[in-house]
């Protein structure tokens, strides 16, 4: 997608990341590097399964291979990468953790800061762009345009998520930012990655067992009308409130969220979050502090969010925005902690869709393979 302007061709497709003209020399960014030999601080020791996967991953990376970690939601993908991060940092190499969504960048940066208290873990995303270099960079995939040829290890989390999935520009940004190996993490690998794995272009390691060893939440499907679904959601939310459990109510569209919040507010303390919410951090903070009991959300929160004892309800689960991958991620929010490894997940719909069936089938298969 090139356009000729005053005798110079420029690329229109990646214009959002600055005008790049034909023949223009792209100067790699000068970044800070230092050797750090240490170990991550962990709240819990890794399980033998996690250790095994972590070791396999590092061995493959040492051999110069790209690695795909196919792990269930809540299996501890982030923790699996820590050993590899330490190895690269001990050689004075640069590591980046790139994720599609801003909200998840902030969460992961917080977690990694706890894991590496001696290091400066720098989140780089919208609202966090004043400091763009540190010992360990956690950024959105959009921000990778800043780091051409900078990273010896690029960890790409949730690569099947919007907006990274299928976005040629972002994929190319990731390619050009990485000069070493790539470590890809996902609970729902896309066809392209599976093809690359089958061709032997990268190695895959699998982990479906969560650290607590309990099975993944397989959602119940409740077929009912939309009105009835709202009534049932209200009843469920009140029930969970009595048990002192928080609820995530997923809706397919922002406008559904607006009225759903209004309805639920009569019965429980409720808030709404979606991509256009201005105070996302504040809303999430309130939810984490249990100041709100129910959080109505769009697929914005389908990934990377860990809330203890959270239950998940999906309104109009047969809507086309809820793909199998999306639903697997959504129900992956349930039962992630040792203190409460079980939970409830319910799909409200007019009838089970193929995507819902696929999701349930895959979750059952993951549980069986444990």
């Amino acid at each position, binding site marked *: *997608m*090139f*356009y*000729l*302007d005053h005798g110079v061709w420029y690329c*229109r*497709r990646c*214009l*959002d990341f*600055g*005008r790049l003209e034909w023949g223009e020399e792209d100067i790699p960014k000068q970044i800070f590097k230092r050797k750090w030999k240490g170990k991550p601080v962990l709240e819990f020791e890794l399980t033998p399964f996690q250790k095994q996967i972590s070791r396999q991953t590092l061995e493959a990376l040492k051999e110069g291979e790209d690695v795909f970690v196919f792990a269930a939601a809540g299996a501890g993908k982030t923790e699996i990468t820590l050993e590899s991060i330490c190895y690269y940092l001990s050689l004075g190499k640069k590591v980046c953790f790139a994720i599609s969504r801003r909200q998840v960048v902030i969460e992961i940066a917080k977690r990694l800061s706890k894991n590496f208290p001696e290091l400066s873990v720098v989140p780089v995303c919208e609202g966090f762009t004043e400091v763009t270099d540190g010992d360990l960079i956690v950024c959105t995939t959009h921000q990778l345009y800043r780091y051409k040829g900078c990273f010896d290890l690029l960890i790409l989390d949730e690569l099947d998520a919007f907006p990274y999935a299928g976005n040629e520009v972002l994929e190319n940004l990731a390619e050009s930012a990485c000069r070493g190996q790539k470590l890809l993490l996902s609970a729902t690998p896309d066809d392209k990655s599976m093809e690359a794995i089958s061709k032997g272009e990268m190695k895959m390691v699998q982990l479906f067992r969560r650290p607590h060893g309990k099975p993944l939440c397989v959602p119940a499907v409740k077929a009912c009308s939309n009105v009835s679904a709202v009534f049932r959601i209200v009843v469920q939310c009140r029930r969970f409130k009595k048990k002192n459990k928080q609820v995530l109510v997923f809706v397919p569209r922002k406008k559904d969220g607006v009225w759903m919040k209004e309805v639920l507010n009569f019965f429980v303390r409720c808030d709404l979050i979606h991509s256009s919410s201005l105070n996302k951090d504040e809303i999430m903070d309130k939810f984490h502090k249990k100041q709100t009991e129910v959080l109505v959300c769009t697929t914005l929160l389908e990934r990377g969010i860990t809330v203890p004892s959270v239950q998940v309800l999906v309104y109009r689960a047969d809507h086309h925005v809820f793909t199998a991958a999306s639903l697997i991620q959504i129900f992956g929010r349930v039962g992630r902690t040792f203190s409460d490894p079980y939970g409830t997940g319910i799909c409200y719909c007019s009838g089970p869709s193929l995507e819902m069936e696929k999701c349930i089938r895959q979750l059952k298969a993951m549980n069986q393979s444990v």
Partner: protein
Amino acid sequence: MHKAAQSDEPVCLTCMKPLSGQLELSQVFLGKERVCPDCRTQRVWKNKTGIWNGKKIIVLFENNEWMETFWKRYALLNDTALAPVLLEGKMKKVASLIAGKGIVAESSPDILSAMGHLPVETLFSCYGYKVWHPQFAFRDQPADNSKIYLLKEPFTLIVSGMEVLEKTKSTWMANQADCILVLKATKEEMNQLCKKRKERSSPEIF
């Protein structure tokens, strides 16, 4: 450009979605369409007249979400491929507004260095109009600018938005202009202008 984009099929210059399927067959073959119908409806033509500091002012388009995105991409990111898009289909009307007058556009070295081009000038020059751009207009140094003296009075001043006009307030450009064209203004800004116009036209009561 839409075909010079070297893609397999023509795409909308603004939203980049394929044009085929959204256009009538004749439009596809003629290949003159640059923008999809969706984007076209979001480009809201206003042509609203108002008064600003005693000067006649005409607002051409509403500054909405589409316009914000368009202007960011066109002006800030220097996507000159978009230059013909804004005035496409409206150029006859605009031409009648500026007929017989010189055109002066906002400009400054700061704009040029920040954006890599002078957005307003590029918009008009792609339709073959000569646009004067006094180089230091925003720096209140009009006296040594010779170009303006070459202009036949009166002239039309063209600015991108009301905020630019506010900056231009103290300069000679706004004072000497016969008419001011504002490319984009928000609904609130337009209401404000119309309110002032009504106030001005109402008879004074003693």
